[in-house]
């Protein structure tokens, strides 16, 4: 196969600049600036916090399993205060310490590889971004030893989170943690944008870039738009709490709605920040296992751009019931964003059409993602109306809706990506049989957990309540939901077992076990420190496929057109 020499002068020995400098193993983890090692640290940190946030979720679900109960475990009594703390920390951990770093892990590992670069644009900034994550986690959990953590919800609405109603250190440390984590994401976003714009290999035009990279790019732009804003808002809250700022105190001329605008101006793009990279990963996985190209590559690019643009203009649909916003405007933008989202859905489905779909664990997880994301998306339509939302807002219907997107869909996509990319990251294959068992358990688990929540919400169960009266008929639905959450944890446990099994005994992967399409598969598994010895020519969005299947390009009448139309 024809190759482009990226480092023609690279010495064949390990002695040159292209190898990682030798350091003691433990020391290396603290000093590394290699994007792949940083990515692994992101992934391990994120998975650790998944277990922390998941444990909190199990406690929350157990507390709610039956009406009028107070869960008592050795050393823990779930009082109203403890309950409010638990859901606050659960959401904060899952959003900022699990999903965000997990996506940073995928992005860090695969953006440089997929565009044929040797590392991120700013390797030291990259390391700094990572180390801010454990720092933020430590600050957040310090609050348990400093008078109790924040209990005002992950939204920390003022005046509830203000000095009068949330005295103590909890909210202060929560703000501190979010400031650190926000800085981590912001620096990471600058790094991704720079890497994607400046470090693409020769031939890798924007319209030949893998959809995963496109999604990371749009995600990074959204981060730049939203995180600095919320950090500023949290600073105002900090001043309110500690220096009598009164920005959000109506008694002194402040405005409590202003806080909600600032928070959700970040909060809604955040949802897309959390799901776009996963949509990107799905857009890599479905074509590879269908043995076809992605259906409508350019449509995906436009849809992603449209979601990014509209995503910054829908925030106040979280405030439909405040009586202080233009409901119609935000209903309109919220409806509109379903159009590009639908386009993605249809394209993924069409990609499978006439394919030869390998039912690998990764592909089954991806199909699970489609199925779950569809439910999350359609239930979003109910909320978008603005009118029907006046019944559903702040009930378990909304809890079900966003958990279908951020748990059901996100977990399926994350495991799809892990099964797909684990061989590249470690050189070994995860166990497929165990993976398929995990698909089944996870599918039953998430649906059992979150589907009853729609019914609960329709019947009027508000979110964030520590318990509920007997005789409302909510007990059995909550019990189902709780049982489902235990199944979800079994599914996660199966992955942990698979992970440790595969590290020792997984089959050796080779460079490209899936006959996949993009550049990360053009190097060894795991890739060397400098990533590539040589790159195949990049003429389409599937350079590795083109190199491995020259007969397809030769017989494709449209090939030249596709090459020329993706050249700037």
């Amino acid at each position: 196969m024809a190759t482009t020499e990226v480092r023609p002068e690279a010495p064949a020995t390990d002695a040159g600049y292209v190898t990682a400098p030798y350091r003691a193993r433990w020391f290396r983890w603290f000093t590394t600036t290699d994007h792949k090692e940083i990515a692994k640290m992101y992934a391990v940190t994120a998975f650790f916090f998944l277990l922390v946030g998941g444990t909190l979720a199990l406690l929350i679900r157990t507390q709610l399993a039956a009406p009028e109960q107070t869960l008592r475990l050795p050393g823990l009594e779930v009082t109203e205060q403890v309950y409010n703390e638990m859901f606050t920390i659960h959401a904060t951990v899952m959003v900022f310490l699990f999903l965000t770093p997990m996506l940073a892990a995928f992005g860090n590992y695969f953006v440089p590889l997929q565009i044929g670069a040797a590392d991120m644009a700013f390797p030291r900034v990259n390391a700094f971004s990572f180390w801010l994550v454990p720092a933020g986690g430590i600050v957040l959990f310090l609050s348990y030893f400093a008078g109790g953590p924040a209990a005002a919800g992950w939204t920390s609405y003022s005046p509830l989170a203000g000095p009068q109603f949330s005295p103590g250190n909890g909210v202060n440390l929560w703000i501190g943690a979010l400031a650190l984590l926000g800085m981590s994401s912001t620096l990471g976003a600058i790094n991704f944008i720079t890497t994607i714009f400046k470090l693409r290999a020769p031939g890798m035009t924007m319209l030949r870039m893998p959809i995963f990279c496109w999604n990371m790019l749009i995600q990074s732009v959204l981060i730049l738009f939203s995180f600095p804003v919320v950090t500023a808002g949290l600073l105002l809250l900090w001043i309110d709490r500690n220096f009598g700022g009164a920005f959000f105190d109506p008694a002194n001329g402040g405005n409590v709605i202003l806080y909600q605008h600032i928070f959700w101006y970040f909060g809604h793009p955040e949802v897309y920040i959390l799901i776009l990279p996963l949509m990107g990963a799905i857009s890599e996985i479905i074509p590879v296992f269908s043995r076809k190209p992605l259906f409508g590559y350019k449509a995906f690019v436009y849809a992603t751009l449209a979601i990014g643009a509209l995503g910054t203009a829908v925030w106040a649909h979280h405030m439909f019931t405040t009586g202080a916003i233009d409901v119609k405007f935000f209903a309109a933008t919220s409806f509109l964003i379903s159009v590009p989202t639908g386009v993605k859905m249809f394209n993924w489905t069409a990609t499978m059409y006439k394919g030869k779909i390998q039912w690998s664990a990764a592909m089954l997880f991806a199909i699970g993602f489609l199925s779950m994301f569809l439910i999350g998306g359609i239930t979003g339509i109910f909320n978008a109306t603005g009118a029907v939302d006046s019944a559903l807002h702040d009930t378990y219907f909304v809890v079900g809706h966003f958990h279908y997107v951020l748990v059901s869909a996100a977990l399926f996509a994350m495991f799809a990506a892990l099964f797909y990319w684990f061989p590249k990251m470690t050189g070994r294959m995860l166990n497929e049989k165990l993976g398929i068992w995990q698909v089944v358990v996870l599918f039953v688990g998430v649906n059992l957990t979150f589907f009853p929540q729609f019914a609960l919400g329709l019947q009027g169960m508000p979110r964030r309540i520590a318990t509920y009266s007997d005789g409302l008929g909510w007990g059995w639905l909550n019990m189902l939901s709780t049982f489902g959450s235990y199944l979800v944890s079994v599914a996660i446990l199966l992955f942990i077992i698979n992970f440790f099994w595969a590290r020792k005994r997984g089959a050796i992967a080779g460079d490209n076990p899936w006959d996949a399409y993009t550049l990360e598969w053009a190097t060894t598994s795991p890739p060397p420190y400098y990533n590539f010895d040589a790159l195949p020519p990049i003429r389409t969005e599937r350079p590795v496929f083109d190199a491995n299947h020259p007969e397809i390009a030769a017989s494709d009448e449209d090939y030249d057109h596709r090459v020329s139309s993706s050249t700037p």
Partner: protein
Amino acid sequence: MPRATSRRSSRGYVPGLLALALVLGACGAGQPDPVTEQGEGLHSLYLVVFWLGFAIFAAVEIAIFYMAIRFRRRKTDDDSLPPQIHGNDKLEIAWTVIPAIIVVVLFVLSWIQINDVQKVSAEPQLTIGVEAFQWQWNFVYHDETLASGEPVTVKGALPDEIPTLVVPVDTLIQLDLSTEDVIHSFYIPQALYKLDVVPGLDNRFDVTFTKEGRFRGQCAELCGLSHSQMVFWVEVVSAAEYEDWIAGTKSEAEAELLATTACKPSGTKVEVVAKDIKFDKKCLAAPVDSPFEIVFDNQDEGIDHNVAIYTSEEAVTAGEKALFQGEIFKGVDERTYDVEPIAEGQYFFICDIHPTAMTGTFNIAPEG
């Protein structure tokens, strides 16, 4: 990774989904029957969104699973690649334009409902103030006042006093929401409606209950520790029952007021008993500009009590001198205090030994 699996007909999904739809449809698609005029409009929009959403859900879900099963790689397949289809511009346009039309229709329907629920009448038939606080509700009937000028008020308090908002059926009611502390949300599931109670905002909404009955309501916005206990009831009754209720509540409130702060003098002999570190009366009264006597019966064995009159509660905390201070003595015993004339006005009486537990109002007013 080809896998042999038992062939399951994808057509099996269709009856399954239809059965699910029937079950859901039979119970209002999961939403409770609305009990208000505004809720009926919201429910009809909900049903449109539900059936449309269900149709799209069923169609796409079937498509996903059909594709995944129909086009799976089989054991007998060779390694050749399937046709490499890169896309289809006409299809892309179709599945952009058709959903766009659907959401425009939904938006127009929503527009109508939003207008409907946001309508705030300038002349409602009844205006009730809803005061939210950590962690209960007060309902203030502005149109119904007591003799003192205070409006009729239903008060809630933790842990057990769950307030009931009593309203007449088929009446245009405006609920005027207010709070002095944090954000709450006034939510009646069977009205299919909620509106946030925001400090600094004048939020109000119109509601016309069309069904009599007792409906549950609850705060829907996290408002701190006991958020989950901010429950209330709405009782929708006929106009006649409502009038009876108002009259009954008024006379109860007047009687309560009489017993606590609005008692009137009758003669120059005022009797009061102390038992279990409590006065038996919350309100005492004596005629204006005339000397009177307080017959004080201390029934607490071995405990010091007295009766003292101050100008106000603040005067006690400020350490001001009493207008009258009765002798302190141990029970069980009785004393008769002679009190000099006091000018007309509302005063405050306490036991000097128990200034927080034993207090009341002392009215000096013309007799009769």
